[in-house]
């Protein structure tokens, strides 16, 4: 049996203000195994963002247990969560979130800069991290864009920089939050192709989206509605995106 990378059991998240309690998630349980490509779908307000924050160790659940790559995450302190995020999770955001005015290379190196904060043994030299960053930028087809700053890149290119950035610390999962939400559709196809390629190489990919066309690229689709798990099934008609477009035009 393949090992579970993500194990969620009876996860609930309740936001409390002075006046009201809002239940964002109630009793969510599922497992994601190594090498899976999962799309989490749901309309806005369904709680999928809250779920993404919990899976991404950006937030902790009110009740329930979350084991990520063998480590119980749900009860950790803020600083320990930062360690988990640095080592185990590769984030890809809808708005890319690259540092403005920094070069592509510098942006991709950023997660490695904070490795030292986890433990000094885990730290790597600047030269080493430059080598790793370059390797992943070549992988996403941006070898000619190493010294460009983010304002010189298209949306698709920026998202590919973000994908390279998510990979550098060799995380347990890639967590993508609406990765194609801010880019043109032909470029979105390209991003999906990269995800499928990474998945074929053995990376576990979790993608949050509200577009079924995008979700169709995943191998498994989980539906969330009103904070509850509605369906969780294998995607029988997985769309295969083509890495066909000449990459410099992206």
């Amino acid at each position, binding site marked *: 049996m393949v090992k579970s990378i993500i194990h969620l059991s009876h996860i609930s998240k309740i936001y409390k203000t002075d006046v009201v309690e809002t239940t964002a998630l109630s009793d969510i349980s599922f497992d994601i195994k190594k090498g899976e490509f999962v799309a989490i779908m749901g309309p806005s307000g369904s709680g999928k963002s809250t779920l993404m*924050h919990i899976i*991404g160790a*950006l*937030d902790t659940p009110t009740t329930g247990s979350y084991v990520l790559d063998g480590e119980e995450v749900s009860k950790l302190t*803020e*600083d320990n969560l*930062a*360690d988990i*995020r*640095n*080592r185990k999770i590769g*984030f890809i*955001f809808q708005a890319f*979130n690259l*540092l403005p*005015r*920094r070069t592509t290379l*510098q942006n991709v190196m*950023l*997660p490695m*800069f*904070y*490795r*030292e*904060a*986890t433990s000094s043994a885990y730290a790597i030299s600047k030269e080493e991290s430059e080598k790793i960053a370059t390797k992943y930028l070549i992988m996403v087809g941006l070898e000619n864009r190493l010294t460009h700053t983010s304002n010189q890149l298209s949306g698709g290119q920026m998202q590919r920089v973000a994908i390279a*950035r998510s990979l550098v*610390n060799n995380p347990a999962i890639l967590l993508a939050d609406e990765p194609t939400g801010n880019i043109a559709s032909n470029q979105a196809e390209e991003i999906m192709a990269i995800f499928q390629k990474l998945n074929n190489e053995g990376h576990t990919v979790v993608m949050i989206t509200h577009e079924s066309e995008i979700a169709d690229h995943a191998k498994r689709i989980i539906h969330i509605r009103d904070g509850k798990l509605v369906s969780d099934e294998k995607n029988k008609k997985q769309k295969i995106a083509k890495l066909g477009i000449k990459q410099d035009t992206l």
Partner: protein
Amino acid sequence: MKNVKLITEAIGTLTINKLRTGLAMLGIVIGIGSVIALVSLGQASQEAIQSQIQSLGANLLTVNPGSQRTGAVRGAAGSETTLTNADAEAIKTDSAITTVSAVSSEINQRAQVVAGKNNTNVRVNGVTSIYASVHKVTMDSGVFITDQDDAGIAKVVVLGPQVVSDLFGEGSNPIGQNIRIKGTSFRVVGVATSKGGSGFLNQDDVIYIPLSTAQKQVFGQTYLSNISLEAKSADVMTEAQNQVGYLLLARHKLSDPTQADFSILSQQDILNTANSTTSTFTTLLSGIAAISLVVGGIGIMNIMLVTVTERTREIGLRKALGAKKNVIVRQFLIESIILTFTGGSMGIVLGILVSYLYSLVNKSTFFISTPSILIAFVVSALVGVLFGWYPAQRAANLQPIEALRYE
């Protein structure tokens, strides 16, 4: 996490955002620079006024005729006729006077002087040779009034530089030429160097003639306008004042000092008055400096608050990628320390430079006050670091998701 790495990262951030960094630094540079410059200008002015008064002569006492209090009526200054040549001679020779090193008998009145087609109204000083050393008069060209001139009632004159340019034109050499004072012709034998001053303090708009000539030929009077005394040292000024005072009281047959028909003014009195005036001036400048420090501080505070708030999303991203709270806070703290200290040093250089240029332009003493540098630097550095740290602390406390969503 090592500070060295954070310092490198901070320098990277600061150099990439040149405009933001430049603006933040400008506030600090101007804040510190203006305080240092203002205080130093104030002190340079005070210094200038003091040295001008010093140039009137050192350890100087002036005996003026006229009472300090003669009942209800007081004559116009200089109209009293109580000081005579004999009084001056007595001060010079009396054995009770041990603290006076020089005595200068003087007459001064304003008169119209004429040279060719030009004429001007100047102060005419009837003096003896000792006047030059007592009042620190130096010669630009020619010679000062000599004892022979005085003994021989010579019709010679020494001109102040202002008078030379008024009568003969700037830069011309009047030595050997003649001028007329109240109808009497005088030969110019020397020109004094400029002592500066303006208005009633103008020490260049004067001419000097022998005392005997002034008394017998020009003004026809036997009494003196005043007697200037030089005390042996600054410490015996009061003693000299007393010795001379008692001698003159005895000579004028007065027993009650309140009835004295003369007054003795020490140069210290003038200096004190001038000092209290300039200290008001310095207080004013310090007030302006304090206000500019406050304004500079608020400027620093604003720019630091804005830059950190603007970077909330960046902080969110850094946290999401694994930066711990204390790493974020340290990173921003290091940035603001670099910023304020670089800006502060530049401000100090600017302040000193402005003060130096001011002293060059005004030919005044170059004066730098260390306390003002320290206070300006410490205040700006504190403000800069505090308001770099506080918003960073606040942003680092946000959940990474909230910070990422921040618009």
